[in-house]
């Protein structure tokens, strides 16, 4: 059954590629073995076959034909539109390509990468095999564990608007958002989608991991237009960039501890300081650290527990104490 269908589809492709003029459905039925005589049954099967070819990316063209043929639409596939253009790769280029194809391994586009490689091999390119990874000494991977990645990539590719439930940071309940997606960007290991939020009529960035439930298409393909000159990487970077570190905190830190804070300290006095330091009486160091948001930095400091104590400013000190008391509760 399936073999006969494969044979029929293959004959159809060869038939459509071999003709310069458009063929009517009836001419195709006569040329390709396996279609039923009964007109309605043939029509249904032919429609499905056309759809399958289109899904494989075979550029099926329709065009006008002579009325003498009794029908008004004809079909063909142009060689030039069908064929992969000539492509010759040097050995080093093929090696990099093999490395690139592995990036998606076990991720959303793994099948597409394998399909691409198959076509390139079919074009005579050998992308292999001794493992460019071992030669380069490097092995890159990207993961797409967020279920929203697949539908959002399709929406971006086909320029379709989407709706989804989104739980913003700190929100207890998700909200429905409608987005015209412009692009999907992985930043610091997380996927984000950027686009125009229809309700807010403004550019917005959403984290894929915070999308709750399915992503649904809310409009036809081709109905999203990205503003000219938009760089999605830049949109995501702007929304996600950390503000400047404009505050300064003074902290006492236990010797040999709080390395996570010391790494960013601008001033260290005490026993751990290099030659310049003046030892404090109790052996602790005093460090000065630049930070941006009080809440974020209080989180950091609190995590060091008794190894780090804020001297100033007072609002930071209070924020840390609040967290510690919260941990007691």
């Amino acid at each position, binding site marked *: 059954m399936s073999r006969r269908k494969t044979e029929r*589809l293959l004959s159809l492709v060869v038939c459509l590629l071999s003709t310069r003029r458009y063929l009517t459905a009836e001419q195709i039925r006569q040329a390709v073995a396996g279609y039923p005589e009964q007109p309605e049954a043939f029509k249904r099967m032919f429609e499905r076959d056309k759809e399958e070819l289109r899904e494989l990316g075979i550029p099926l063209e329709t065009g006008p034909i002579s009325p003498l043929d009794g029908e008004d639409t004809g079909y063909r596939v142009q060689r030039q539109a069908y064929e992969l253009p000539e492509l010759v790769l040097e050995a080093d280029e093929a090696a990099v390509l093999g490395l690139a194809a592995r*990036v998606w391994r076990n991720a959303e586009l793994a099948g597409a990468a394998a399909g691409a490689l198959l*076509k390139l091999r079919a074009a005579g390119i050998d992308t292999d095999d001794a*493992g460019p990874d071992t030669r380069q000494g490097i092995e890159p991977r*990207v993961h797409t564990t967020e279920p929203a990645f697949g539908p959002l990539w399709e929406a971006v590719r086909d320029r379709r608007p989407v709706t989804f439930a989104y739980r913003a940071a700190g929100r207890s309940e998700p909200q429905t958002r409608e987005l015209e997606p412009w692009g999907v960007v992985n930043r610091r290991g997380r996927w984000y989608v950027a686009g125009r939020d229809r309700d807010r009529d403004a550019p917005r960035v959403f984290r894929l991991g915070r999308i709750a439930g399915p992503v649904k298409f809310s409009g036809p393909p081709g109905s999203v237009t990205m503003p000219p000159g938009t760089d999605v990487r830049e949109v995501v970077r702007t929304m996600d960039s950390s503000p400047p570190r404009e505050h300064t905190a003074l902290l006492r830190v236990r010797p040999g501890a709080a390395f996570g804070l010391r790494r960013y300290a601008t001033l260290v006095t005490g026993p751990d300081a290099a030659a310049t330091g003046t030892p404090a009486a109790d052996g602790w160091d005093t460090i000065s650290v630049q930070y941006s948001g009080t809440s974020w930095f209080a989180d950091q400091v609190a995590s060091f527990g008794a190894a780090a104590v804020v001297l100033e400013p007072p609002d930071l000190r209070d924020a840390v104490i609040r967290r510690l008391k919260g941990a007691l509760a």
Partner: protein
Amino acid sequence: MSDATPRKRAGNTAPTSAERLQRLLALVPYVVSRKAVGLADTADAFGLTERELVDDLNLLWCVELRNPDPYCPIDLSYEGGEIVVSQAESIGRPLRLAVDEASALLIALRMLADVPGLEDRSALSRVIAKLEAAAGEAAAPSAQVAVQVERPAGDEALAQIRDALARQRRLHLRYYVPGRDEATERDVDPMRLLVVEGRTYLEGWCRRADGVRLFRLDRVLGVQVLDTPAEVPADAQPVDVDQGLFRPSDDDVHVVLEVSANGRWVAEDYPTESVTELGEGRLRVQLRTPDTRWVRRLALRLGEDGRIVAPDELRTQVRDDATAALTAYAS
């Protein structure tokens, strides 16, 4: 073996007609572009058994068009284990790349351009240009997806690590372990660099732990290439990057914590075993870890937005930690 080869299918899952058609349309040009190829090599390249391949070849050979007289557009033979296509008619070249196919490769190649320490940049830009040209319009949507790779601050550390990898030398690392808030010193025999989730890691045989360890490059505080040759034991198991970098083990401590809506980021930032919604945005998070010190620090940081449910002793430790810290503020 190249890993992007389609995997051999498990016994009874037959491909769909569309999938098989795709394969047949690649098979003919594969043979044509190589003039002649062996059955075994071809079967291998397509992830097929020789029997499946022969079945494909027979199917191709049997194709018949009646136009109006019957003729066979494809002529081939595979006598003596060598495939020769003598007539391929209109399917002698592979089909163009679909948007997904072109995108998968182009997105990955552009990501590689960001990867620190990849030496072959000229090959990279050449292959990107060639692929864009070959894909034509299908290449366009790939510009709307990007994977950014963080560049670790210390480029010179990376240069030294690459030098050690190339010359197979032992490294001395000063490495920050945030979970324990420790700056550790250790000798490491480098194995390779991994770029996963936008971060770069050194994989190496740690002589202090006597095992394979990953070191995040942005946590390397100092690095020194030693004169000692690297000695990675022959049975050292590289990390399987496709299974995730952090794999729980049976010896791990099982931790349960509850977080408020403000603490939901915990489930996004840490590898968890299960996450349960408790209503009002609250979550119960279960995880396994060999070392609970980082969980204690996490609990302090969460404050009232988090609560350790189990194990009991961890809850007690957090309470002690908080009390000790508050004492420091009281003085």
